[in-house]
Every structure is written in C-alpha cells, then in structure tokens.
C-alpha cells in the first residue's frame, strides 16, 4: 500500500460508490417505505397499469441513486494531519468533518462480500458526543484502517486473517458456533413482531387457502378419497406449523447473517468483537467507557438458559441520539458474571447479575398494590361505570381488566429486586423474561428520589440513577434506604477522581 502523505487530499477507492448506494437505499428503506403503502393500494385497484409505472419508477430511481452515489464519491475526500483526520463530503450541501484523534474512542470496520474480495473495509470512527457528525471512511484498505488505529494510539490487531486464531494473542472471551446461531435465531423476538405485522395479511391468505383446500377436497372426493373434519384440523395445524417454521428459519438466517463466527476478545483495555456472514462487522468498546451492563433473557432464552449481555456507552447528545451498544448475543449466567468481573475490575464486578440468584432484595409489595389500584381497579371501575348505561351488563366485562393487571403486577413485583455493595448496584426486573442492569456508583450523573402521595403515606420512595447511557430506576424501596443510597452515591461520585467515560 502506498503510504499516505500528510496534508494532502485523497479520494477513496471508486468502490466507495457501492457504500453510497447502500447508504441511500438504507435511508430510503428507513424513511420512505410508508409511502409505498398507497402504491400497493393503487396496485390492488388495477385501474392503472401499475406494474409498468413501478418498472419505470424503479429504473428512474435506480439511475438517480447511482448518479447520486457517483457524485458523492467524487466529492468525498479525506486528509490526514498530525493529530486529526479531515473529511470533506457533500454534493449540494458541503460538509467538513474534523475528527481529532484524541477524540476517537474506537475504530469499527465493516466489510461486505464485495469489499472482502477486494480487501477493502469501511471505517467508522467512534467518537464521544455528537453522533450526528459520525465519520465514515468507505472503501479503504484494511492496512490503512490498521495504520489509523496505530495513529490514534490503539494497538492494531495483528493480522487481517479470517481465522479466529489470528487474535489468539489477546484474550479470547467468546466464540460462537452454528449451534449458538440457531439458539440466537430461536430467541429472536423480532420474528414475533414480523408475525404481528403480517397477522392481518394471514387472514386473507387463509381465505384464499380455504378456497384451494375446498377444491382439493372436492377433487379428492371425486377420486373416491374422503376427508373428514379431523384431517381438516390436521391440515390447518400443518399450515400453522409451516408458518412458524418459516419464521424460525428466517430468524436463524438473520442470526447467521449478523453473528456468523462471532468472536469476542479483550485487547488490552478494549473489547472487540467480530462476526457476520456476508457483511463482517467489527466493533470495539473501551472497558472504561462502559456505563451499564445489561443481562437480558426472553422467554425462549429462559428455556435455553442463555442470556444476551449488552454493554452500554454514553448516549450522544444532539439530534441523532444514537447509543453505542456492545452486544454479546449468547452467554450463560456464570459466564456473564465472569465477564462482569473482567470488565469492571479491579474496583467492582463482584456482584452477580444472574436473575435467579437468591441474593436480590425484594422491593415493597406496595408496588404491586399501587399498580392494581391505580392501573387496574380505578380505570376498570370508571370505564364500567361510564358504559353501564349504554352497554348494560356487558360493561361488567371491563372488570376482567382487574385480574389481568393483578397477575402482571404480581409477576413484575416478584421479579423486581436489587442488590448492591460499596461500589455497584444491580437492579432486576422483568415480566415474561428477566432483565438485570448493573452499574458503578461512581459513574452516576445525577440521582433523584421521588415519591407519589401513595408512596409518601407508606414511607416508600423510588430511586432513579441517571447514567450517561440512560437511567436505572429502583422503585418502591423504603424512603430511608433510598435517601441513604442517594447520599452514598453522591459521596462516591464526589470523592471519585476517575473519569466516568
């Protein structure tokens, strides 16, 4: 690779055009998909020759996107100086970014299949603060990315080899195999969301299907085969199973796409992860930047006895309040605690974040009572009373709201809890699954003790700790405990001379 000279403007490789095309398409997919719905409605009316309109539109759109990408590539230039990298971009609206090396917290890279063949990467600078000004450097060589890492004082990784073995010199923490991918896929909640979205559609498909089945049955009957109600039930079950299977397959595929050959290792004080089937993602996070550690478990993960561990960094201020989240998609409880110890060492990390541990202190049962009273009983009563005149006895059905709220409240109360020592606190919550969040007292930004009227009468309060990554609330604990914890947190923060970020 030719070495770059300082203070000279460079263009990236022309393959960056791919990056700009991808960026535009992502932007469109994110913001413009709603406008496709009326189009679909139009297609359904078949008044116009919509197909050809769409074809023309697609070609036109493609041309515009490609042209825009070429222009973006042309106007995209970067320059290295002693202590910063300057990026100039923008076709119509010019933008210049000056990213000081000192401000860069990490360099993440991404590599899609085409770039992998060409041995190029897209570099993403991870800076504290303004995420609206995030810098991307598309289509540069990996050795350039590594030289950048070196420049900003982060130790570069040894080689670019695909093998996990290449990172053996740093501490290897996790590597996930295909079985884990299946586990992650099965536990993926997004499949359920997709299901909820296409649920109404399913009904229509079902109607169509009814027609087919009817014809099929008639056909079979004509050939002397008789279907009874039981086989109809079997057919329906088979269809449902097929749909479920399809979703499972899609989520497993998604898991493979995102986490294939996921590897996590500790490189000095920096956590690094790599994974992905087509596009390889590489993330990094300095241990000192971690604000909270969150251990989550959904319903499926409960059966698998696995968790998802995420480390959260400060939220950037400004319009794009993006959050840096470092995800370890599948860990066991004990493994998670070992990581905690490693990440928070030497000052903390001794508490467990395993939600099944019996060391968690419960919160007050009044939590449950107040929810039943204010979310369950009162609304149910009001609605019942309001509709009693018009709906008659049917209005009593609204009272069924009460047992639902009661069950949810009881379960949430049972699963809530907290646990702390001199340096850290862990809060547990959950309804279907579990979630525990752990943080260091000294990284708290501000702290609030609040009381509703109801809590005041019972001598209770809620403690909310605001971190740079979001807040963590411990509800319904003794007012005295809350105040003592607050005073202690203030003492910890004010007597700490270590950086919180």
């Amino acid at each position: 690779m030719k070495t770059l000279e300082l203070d000279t403007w460079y263009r990236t490789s022309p393959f960056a055009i791919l990056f700009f095309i991808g960026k535009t398409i992502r932007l469109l997919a994110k913001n413009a998909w709603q406008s496709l719905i009326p189009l679909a409605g139009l297609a359904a009316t078949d008044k116009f020759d919509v197909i050809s309109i769409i074809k023309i539109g697609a070609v036109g759109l493609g041309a515009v996107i490609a042209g825009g990408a070429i222009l973006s590539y042309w106007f995209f230039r970067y320059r290295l100086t002693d202590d910063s990298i300057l990026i100039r971009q923008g076709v119509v609206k010019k933008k210049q970014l000056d990213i000081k090396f000192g401000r860069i917290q990490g360099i993440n890279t991404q590599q899609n299949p085409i770039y992998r063949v060409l041995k190029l990467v897209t570099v993403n600078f991870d800076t504290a603060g303004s995420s609206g000004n995030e810098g991307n450097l598309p289509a540069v060589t990996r050795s350039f990315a590594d030289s950048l890492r070196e420049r900003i004082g982060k130790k570069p990784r040894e080689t670019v080899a695909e093998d996990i073995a290449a990172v053996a010199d740093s501490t290897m923490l996790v590597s996930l195999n295909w079985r884990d991918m299946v586990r992650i896929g099965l536990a993926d909640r997004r499949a359920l969301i997709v299901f909820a979205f296409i649920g109404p559609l399913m009904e229509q498909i079902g109607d169509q299907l009814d027609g087919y089945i009817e014809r099929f049955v008639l056909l079979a009957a004509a050939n002397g085969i008789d279907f009874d109600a039981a086989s109809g039930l079997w057919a329906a079950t088979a269809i449902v199973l097929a749909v479920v299977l399809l979703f499972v397959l899609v989520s497993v595929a998604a898991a493979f796409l995102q986490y294939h050959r996921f590897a996590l290792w500790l490189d000095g004080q920096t956590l690094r992860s790599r994974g992905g089937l087509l596009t390889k993602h590489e993330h990094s996070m300095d241990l000192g930047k971690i604000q909270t550690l969150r251990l989550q478990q959904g319903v499926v993960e409960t059966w698998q006895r696995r968790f998802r561990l995420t480390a959260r960094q400060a939220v950037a201020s400004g319009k794009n309040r993006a959050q840096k989240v470092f995800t370890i998609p599948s860990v066991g409880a004990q493994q998670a605690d070992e990581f905690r110890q490693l990440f928070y060492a030497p000052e903390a990390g001794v508490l467990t974040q395993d939600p099944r541990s019996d060391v968690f202190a419960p919160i007050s049962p009044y939590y449950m009572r107040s929810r039943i009273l204010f979310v369950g009983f009162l609304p149910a009563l009001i609605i019942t009373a309001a509709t009693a005149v018009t709906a008659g006895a049917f209005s009593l059905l609204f009272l069924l709201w009460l047992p639902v709220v009661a069950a949810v409240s009881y379960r949430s109360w049972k699963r809530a809890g907290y646990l702390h020592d001199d340096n850290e606190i862990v809060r547990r919550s959950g309804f279907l699954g579990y979630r525990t969040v752990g943080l260091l007292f000294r990284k708290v930004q501000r702290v609030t003790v609040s009381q509703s009227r109801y809590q005041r009468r019972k001598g209770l309060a809620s403690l909310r700790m605001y971190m740079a990554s979001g807040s963590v609330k411990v509800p319904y604990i003794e007012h005295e405990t809350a105040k003592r914890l607050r005073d202690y947190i203030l003492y910890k923060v004010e007597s700490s001379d270590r950086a919180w970020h």
Partner: protein
Amino acid sequence: MFQNPEIALDALPVADDLDWEKLHPHYSRRIRVQVIIVFAVIALGLAALNFVPNVPLLPFVILYSQWVIALTIALFWPGISVPRRGYVLRDKDILFRKGVIWRSVTAIPFNRIQHVETSNTPLDRKFDLANLQLFTAGGSGGDLKIDGLGKGIAERLRVFILNKAGAPVEDA
C-alpha cells in the same frame, strides 16, 4: 501518598433536613401573569364563538364555567406549588426539590456537570427573573431546570457552578 481511610456510613453528609433556598418572591406573580395572558387569549376565542348564529345556550354555559374553573385553579396553584420548590447549594453538589403530589429531590454532583445555561423570557425580565439549566452527560435537554430565580442569583450560581464543574479529572 495514597490514602484510603475508612468511612463510617453514619458520618456521610446527609442530604436531608436542609435549609432549602426559596425561589424569588416574584415568581408566583410571574406565573399568574402568564396564566392571565393565556386565559385572555382563550377568552377572546370564546368571545368569537358568540358571533356564530344558532348555537344553543348550554354549550356556552359549560365552556364558560370550565374557563372560570380552570382559571381559578391555575391562579391558585402557584401559591401551593412554588413554596414546595427549592434548592440547596452544597460544596460538591446542588439539590433541587419540587412537586406537590409527586415529590422529587434531584441531586447533581458538580463534577458531572457538562455545562450551565441561564435564560430568561421577556416576561421573566419584567419581574427580574432568570432560569438556570444544568446539563449532565446522556440527558436530553436540560437535566435540571430551575425556573424563577432572581436574575443576580442565577448569574452567580452559573459562575459558581461552572467554576466547580471545571475541576480536573484524572483519566481512567
């Protein structure tokens, strides 16, 4: 030399039973003036409805009585809520309390403050008032906004807190 003395929990400073500083005495009046302005505008809107022909009397009566009730509450409320608000400036942090039904006490250590802002609206200036906003990391907008401070006090607080916030921090 490195020192790590043991600290008794009972000896920690307690953020309780403090002398809460009251807000500026003009603040309630300032809120009431704002309420009157807003309600006057609404009244104009209501008056315009009179010109609509053929509207039965009852809706008007309901609207006007609601206006009167809302106005009364809005005028009385500052008398209850403003005395409940207050702040305490300590050596290393600032505490702010507020709320009548839902009460809360927020504490911000100075060494977590990112920046400080004072602002005032034309109405504030009429009453010689100013607002103080404190920002910490990760929050959206002002993390702590103290309205209704005297102009001089807000400025003095800003300078004081800014000096404290600039305390050097050793890198982790």
